């Protein structure tokens, strides 16, 4: 029997005594929090900090430049829609497309297979972006392309792993977070194990929650309860969607196709073991190898404080560029570009600096 969001909010107000800072890691959580106005009904003791879980936002400048360079070299580059507007030195996928180059929006990685088969004389590159939620689809694409021997398809894998970034934030002495609201869809794939370090190593609650406002509030209530009772644990309030062992088929695919490697996170820097590169067995589908790309971390634009926004150290209105030089129409940093970026969400939904 679901409990209504206002009832959970009322309970939360009753049990929350100690001031807590809780990070919602995922961009989908961030947007749901804003769209439903959750912050405006939280008790004053509970502060929500938005984290780095927006795949567009953490894709490094250098990585996007690499994708654009492939367009310039005549390849078809297919990517999920929200990558299209991210600006870098060479423009954006959208601006290149208006200039006549062949960048295509796909909603599923498998569409890229048909694009490659239908265009046998073109190189077709899929821009693999996202966390453990989208990486299995890329793995399935690579595995299927290998099985069918599609010679003109390759993948530029910028996929990132969530747990190493969460651990970096848990260990950050400046942040002093009291707990993490963990993304339900990532945990559908990973299960519980990769986040057990939160209670076990750092004594912090980690609660896996879904994306509806009532599920988010329930997750926050569970974090507050664990704190008040001094019993940090890893718990899921995402009903039956998350199995403790995760999705073993998807995990098997990830293991088969990808290896862990160090990866640059825009605004944060390189996080060891946080990236997914293609294994040797699949290197003929690796666009980095096929096009001899050397990826250099790009420099962030001057004055942009996305790095501090992504790690919850400041909120967007504290950045001097917010709403002046940096708007959704002319974004300076990636957090303003993406619909799930923290700056974009503050821009659209936040009343605090407007009234």
């Amino acid at each position, binding site marked *: 029997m679901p409990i209504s969001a206002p009832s959970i909010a009322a309970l939360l107000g009753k049990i929350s005594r100690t001031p807590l800072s809780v990070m919602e890691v995922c961009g989908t959580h961030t947007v749901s929090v804003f769209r439903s106005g959750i912050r405006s009904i939280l008790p004053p003791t509970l502060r929500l900090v938005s984290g780095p879980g927006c795949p567009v936002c953490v894709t490094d400048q250098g990585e996007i430049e690499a994708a654009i360079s492939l367009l310039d070299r005549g390849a078809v580059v297919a990517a999920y829609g929200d990558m299209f507007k991210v600006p870098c030195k060479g423009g954006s996928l959208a601006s290149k497309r208006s200039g006549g180059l062949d960048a295509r929006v796909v909603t599923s990685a498998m569409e890229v297979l048909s694009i490659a088969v239908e265009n046998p004389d073109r190189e077709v590159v899929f821009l693999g972006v996202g966390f453990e939620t989208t990486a299995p689809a890329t793995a399935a694409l690579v595995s299927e392309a290998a099985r069918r021997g599609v010679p003109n398809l390759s993948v530029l894998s910028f996929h990132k792993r969530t747990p190493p970034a969460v651990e970096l934030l848990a260990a950050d002495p400046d942040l002093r977070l009291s707990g993490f609201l963990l993304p339900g869809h990532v945990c559908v794939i990973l299960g519980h194990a990769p986040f057990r370090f939160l209670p076990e190593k750092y004594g912090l609650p980690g609660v896996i929650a879904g994306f509806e406002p009532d599920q988010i509030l329930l997750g926050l209530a569970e974090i507050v309860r664990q704190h008040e009772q001094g019993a940090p644990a890893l718990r899921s309030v995402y009903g039956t969607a998350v199995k403790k062992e995760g999705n073993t088929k998807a995990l098997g695919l990830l293991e088969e196709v990808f290896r862990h490697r160090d990866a640059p996170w825009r605004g944060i820097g390189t996080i060891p073991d946080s990236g997914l590169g293609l294994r040797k067995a699949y290197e003929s589908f690796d666009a980095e190898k096929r096009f001899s790309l050397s990826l250099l971390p790009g420099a962030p634009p001057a004055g942009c404080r996305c790095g501090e926004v992504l790690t919850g150290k400041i909120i967007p209105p504290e950045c001097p560029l917010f709403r002046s030089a940096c708007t959704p129409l002319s974004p300076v940093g990636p957090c303003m570009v993406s*619909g799930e970026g923290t700056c974009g969400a503050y821009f659209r939904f*936040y009343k605090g600096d407007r009234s």
Partner: protein
Amino acid sequence: MKDTAITLGHGSGGRQSADLVSHLLESFGKRGIGPEMEDAALLPGGYAMTMDGFTVSPRRFPGGDIGHLCVCGCANDLAVRGASPDFLGISLVLEEGISPEEVSSYMESAASTCAELGMTLAAGDTKVVPSGAVEGMIITGCAFGQIRTPRTLSMSSIREGDALLVTTSVGRHGAAIASARFNLPVEGLLSDCAPLWPALSPLLHLEGLRCMRDCTRGGLGTVLCEWAEASELHFSLDEDSIPVSFQVKSLCDVLGFDPLYMACEGCAALAVAPSDTEETLRILRQSPLCGDAAVIGRVSSAEPKGMVSMRTSIGGERLVDMPWGEILPRIC
């Protein structure tokens, strides 16, 4: 205009489209011969006029096709300004290779919608361009009609205290197109594409009717943001009152879209004085298209002025802003 090239973002109905239009109108504005920014122009002699171009992919979609869409779009622009859809002009730009049967099928549906409205085809033009110059076809309509109300329906008539209404559930056209384009079929999801004149004309005698707008590109959210900016008043919406079908919600959830910004082609937003709100609802609900008509918010002099805010389903508060750029599906 800051942008150096026109992109699809300039065509999606939000802030960027507004920037482009005002940029394009500069030459007319400085000579004092520019239009007012409403759905249709009110001309001397009691006539109204509008134009609208259509390039939709796919050309046939669940609930309609580009021919039907063209007539509805033009006729609705007149209807929301209180003018009857009387005459239509159609201009076709066809890509070589398109089948004549396909084009005539759109003419058949355009003609049938015109006949339903009592609208006459008064003028037309046809051009054929080389393969690749347009994708299939572009159809542009120009509609002309007689103003049937003594009052000027306009954003400038909106007053503090007015009720905000929608005539039906929002976002169905945009969602139906997205479902076809991204190959995500949703059972029972149809475009709302329909002529609004039969539903709106019985409202024209109401003294409290201030302003109407059909929520096309950019959806209901964009219309209300434009009204709030133009009137310099505060618009507060109640999320639970805004009718959104289950199918539209599902599709938007999957793609990361907001139903508020999804295009409609048979839905109007209305601002009505409190005294006439109930009567407006009663009249609207007599139309088979407007069973879901609802009061969704109020106009007030609260802060922040010129902006739209929303009381959410869970009792929270947030802003509603205009969409920006091309609306693209998200990663996860």
